[in-house]
C-alpha cells in the first residue's frame, strides 16, 4: 500500500492524533478547574491564565533555550494568577465569577503587552515520544507522536481521581467544597483551602498554556487560545467534577476540534469550515443536553456559586 494514500482512513486517524494533540491544554485547564471547583469556587480567569502561561513559557523558552524552564515559568505565573484570584475572593461580597472575568481580560491583556516582542523569534519545542515507530505510514507516525505533557495529564487525571477519595488533602478539599459550615466546625479554614486550590488550578492552567505555545500550535500568537480556557470550564461541569470524566471529555473536545482540519486534509473542500465550529457546537449541545430547568446538577459541590 502506498504509504501516503490511506484515503478516508485518514479522517479517524487524524482525529485520533488531533484528539491527543488538541486535548492536552483542555486536560490541564479542566483538571485545574476541577480542583478549584471541588473546593467550592469557580475561576473563569483560567482563560487569561492560559494565554499568559503560553506567553510566559514562550518568552522564557526563547530567552533561556529550555522549554522546561518555560514550562516551569508558566506554572509559576499561573500559580500567581490563581493565588491572586483566591486571595481577592476571600473578602466579603466579592463574586468569584466577576473576578474571574476580570482576571480573564487582565491575563490576556498582560500577555499581549509583554508578548509583543516574542511573536517573531522561535522557541524550542517540548519533546514528543514517537509511539508510531512500528508503522511506515507517516499519518500513523504523526498521530502517535505523543507529547510528554499528554501522558503527564493522563496520569494526573488518574491520580486526582484516586486522591479525591484516598488522601487527607482530597477529603479536605471535598469537605470545603461541599459545606463551609462543616469545614469550619472541623477547624478548617475554607478560605485557605480555596486559596491553595485556586492557586493549584492556576498553575495547571499555566502548564496548559505552555503546551499551546511550546508544542501545538507551537508558537506565540495573540489568538493562541481561542477560548479553550473557557470551554474547559464548561467541560468540568459536563464531566461532573470527576477528573477521569475531565480527561475523557477533553479527548472528546480534542477530537471534535480535529474534525475540520482532518476533513480538509483528505480533500473535502466544501463546508469544512462548519466543522471547525465542532467544539463550540459540542459545548452548546452538551450544556443544553445536560441541563434541566427542574432539577439541580447531581454531584455539584454544594458551595459552588453557580449551583447555589
Amino acid at each position, binding site marked *: 500500500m502506498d504509504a501516503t494514500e490511506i484515503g478516508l482512513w485518514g479522517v479517524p486517524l487524524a482525529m485520533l492524533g488531533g484528539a491527543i494533540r488538541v486535548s492536552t491544554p483542555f486536560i490541564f485547564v479542566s483538571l485545574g478547574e476541577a480542583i478549584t471547583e471541588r473546593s467550592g469556587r469557580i475561576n473563569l480567569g483560567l482563560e487569561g491564565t492560559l494565554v499568559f502561561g503560553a506567553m510566559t513559557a514562550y518568552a522564557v523558552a526563547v530567552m533561556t533555550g529550555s522549554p522546561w524552564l518555560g514550562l516551569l515559568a508558566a506554572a509559576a505565573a499561573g500559580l500567581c494568577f490563581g493565588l491572586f484570584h483566591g486571595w481577592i475572593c476571600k473578602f466579603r461580597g466579592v463574586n468569584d465569577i466577576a473576578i474571574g472575568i476580570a482576571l480573564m481580560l487582565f491575563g490576556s491583556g498582560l500577555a499581549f503587552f509583554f508578548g509583543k516582542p516574542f511573536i517573531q523569534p522561535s522557541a524550542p519545542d517540548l519533546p514528543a515520544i514517537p509511539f508510531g515507530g512500528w508503522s511506515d505510514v507517516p499519518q500513523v507516525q504523526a498521530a502517535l507522536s505523543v507529547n510528554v505533557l499528554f501522558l503527564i495529564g493522563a496520569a494526573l487525571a488518574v491520580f486526582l481521581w484516586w486522591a479525591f*477519595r*484516598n*488522601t*487527607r*488533602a482530597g*477529603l*479536605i478539599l*471535598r*469537605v470545603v467544597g*461541599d*459545606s463551609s*459550615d*462543616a469545614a469550619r*466546625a*472541623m*477547624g478548617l479554614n475554607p478560605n485557605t483551602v480555596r486559596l491553595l486550590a485556586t492557586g493549584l488550578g492556576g498553575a495547571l492552567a499555566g502548564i496548559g498554556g505552555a503546551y499551546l505555545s511550546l508544542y501545538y500550535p507551537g508558537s506565540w500568537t495573540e489568538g493562541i487560545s481561542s477560548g479553550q480556557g473557557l470551554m474547559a470550564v464548561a467541560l468540568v461541569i459536563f464531566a461532573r467534577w470527576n477528573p477521569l470524566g475531565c480527561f475523557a471529555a477533553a479527548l472528546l473536545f480534542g477530537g471534535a476540534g480535529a474534525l475540520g482540519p482532518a476533513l480538509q486534509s483528505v480533500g473535502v473542500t466544501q463546508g469544512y469550515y462548519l466543522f471547525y465550529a465542532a467544539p463550540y457546537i459540542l459545548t452548546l449541545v452538551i450544556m443544553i443536553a445536560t441541563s*434541566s*430547568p*427542574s*432539577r*439541580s446538577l*447531581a*454531584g455539584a*459541590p*454544594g458551595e459552588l456559586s453557580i449551583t447555589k
Partner: protein
Amino acid sequence: MSDRGKKALGVETIGMSMRFGAFTALDDVSIKVPAGSFHALLGENGAGKSTLVKCIMGFYHPTAGDILIDGREVGIASPKDASALGLGMVYQHFALVPSLTGAENLVISREKVPGIIDWRNERAALAQFMERMPFKLPLDVKVAELAAGEKQKLEIIKQLYLGRSFLVLDEPTSVLTPGEAQEVLGLVRSMTKAGDLTVLMISHKFHEVTAFADDITVLRKGRLTGTGKVSELSHKQMAAMMIGDQPIAALDSRAPVPVGARQILTVKALKAPDRTGLRTIDIGELDVKSGEIVGVAGISGNGQKEFLEVLAGQRTRDAGDVLVKGSPYGASRAEARTLNVRFIPEEPLRNACAPRMTVAENMAFRTFDLNEAGKPISWIRMSAIRDYATRLVEQFKVKTASLASPIASLSGGNVQRAVLARELTGEVDLLIVSNPCFGLDFSAVAEIRARIMKARNAGAAVLLMSEDLDELLELSDRIFVMSDGALVYETPIAQASVQTIGEHMAGHH
C-alpha cells in the same frame, strides 16, 4: 480518639456574661451540669441559649465568667480547645458533609488524619468501633442519602468516635419523626445513665424535656430565670419561666365544619418531578373544603416542598389537575386574584418577599396595581401604598422601625406577621400555608396559629403543611401524611394518633 473518653464530664459555668457592643446577650449565667446527667436548656429565640453554648464551646470569648470541667477551671479559647477537652456539639443544621460517605465524614473529622488514607484499615477500625455503639448505621452511603434520623445518629456517633464525653445537642429532634426522636433521645439517655456521657440539650419541646432530661435551666433575655429538677416541675411552670408574663394569643375555638361545605381545592392525579429529577411526586387525590384546615405531615424531603411549589406555580407539573372552586388553577396572578387564593410559604423572607424592598412595598404586592374598587390602575400611588401598609402594620402588630425600612431588617416573627397581614387581608377562599412558625418564638407562634384558625373559622379552606406534628394536631381538621412523594395516610383529627402518623411518616407501612 475512639479509645479515650470512657467517662462522662461534668461542666459548670460561673457568672458567664457576653456583651456585643451595647447589647448584653448573656448576663451573669451560672449553670451546673453534673457528670452523667441529661440537662435541658430552655428559652425563647434570642434568650441567649446559643450564646451560652457557643461560649462553652469556644466559638465566643465570654466578656466575663469561668468554665469548670470536673470542678477544675479551664480556659477554652477556640473550638479546638473545647474538643481537646472532650466537649462536642451536635448542631441543629447538620454539620456533616452531604457528598461524603459516613465513613469519610468520620475519618476526616478526626484530629490526626494520615496523608494517605488506608481504607481497608480504617473500615476495619470503624466496624470495631461500631460494634460498641448502641445503634447501627450504613457507613458506606453518602450522607445526602441518609434519612434525617440516621444523620442525627451519625452526628452523635461522630462525636463519640472523636472521644467526646460532654455533648451539646442543639434542638436535636427538630427534623425527626416522633418515633426517631424517641429512639435517638432514648439511646442518648441510656448512655448518660451508664455514665459514658453528659448531655446538655437545647430544646423547645416540653414533652421531650419531661421524658428524658434530669434537670433544666431556663434563660430569658440573657438572664437565668429558673432551674430545677424536671420531676418537680410542670409544663406550666417551665413555660412561665420561659416567657415571663407576656400575654399569649389564645386560639379561637374551632367552629364545626358545616355539613355540605363547598369544596374549594381539588388536586387530582398530580405528578411532578422532584428537586433531583430522579423521582416524581404523585398526589392521588386531595380536597380541602371551605372552613377546614387540612394538614399535611411528613419529614422534610418527602416531596412536600415540591408539592407546595407546584401549587405556588414555582414548579411545572407533568400531569394532573389543580382546581380551585371548580376552575383550573395555574397559580397566575390573575387566577390567584379572581379565585382568592393566598399563600404563606416557608422561609417567607426568601419565598414571599423582596428582601431589599421596603415593608410598605412588600405589603402591597397583592394590591399595588389596583384601586379601591379592585380595578387595574395605570399609575401607582405611593401614598395609597403607605396608607394601606400603615393600616395593616397596626392591625397585625408588625414591629418595624419605619414603613420605609427594607423588610429584611425585620425579625423573623415580624416578617411572618407582615406576610400574614398581606395574605389574610381581603377575601380569602383558599389559604396555602407551609411551616408558618418555623424558628419563631413562643408568642409569635401562638399569634400566627390564632390568625390561621381565625381565617378558617371565617370560611377559608386552609392547606397546612408542617414538619411540626404538634402544630398539625393543634390546628388541623384532617391530617394527611406524605411519604416518598405520595399521600400515604389520611385521618380525621378525632382519630389521629401520633404513633400511627409517625409510623407512616417514616414509611413503615
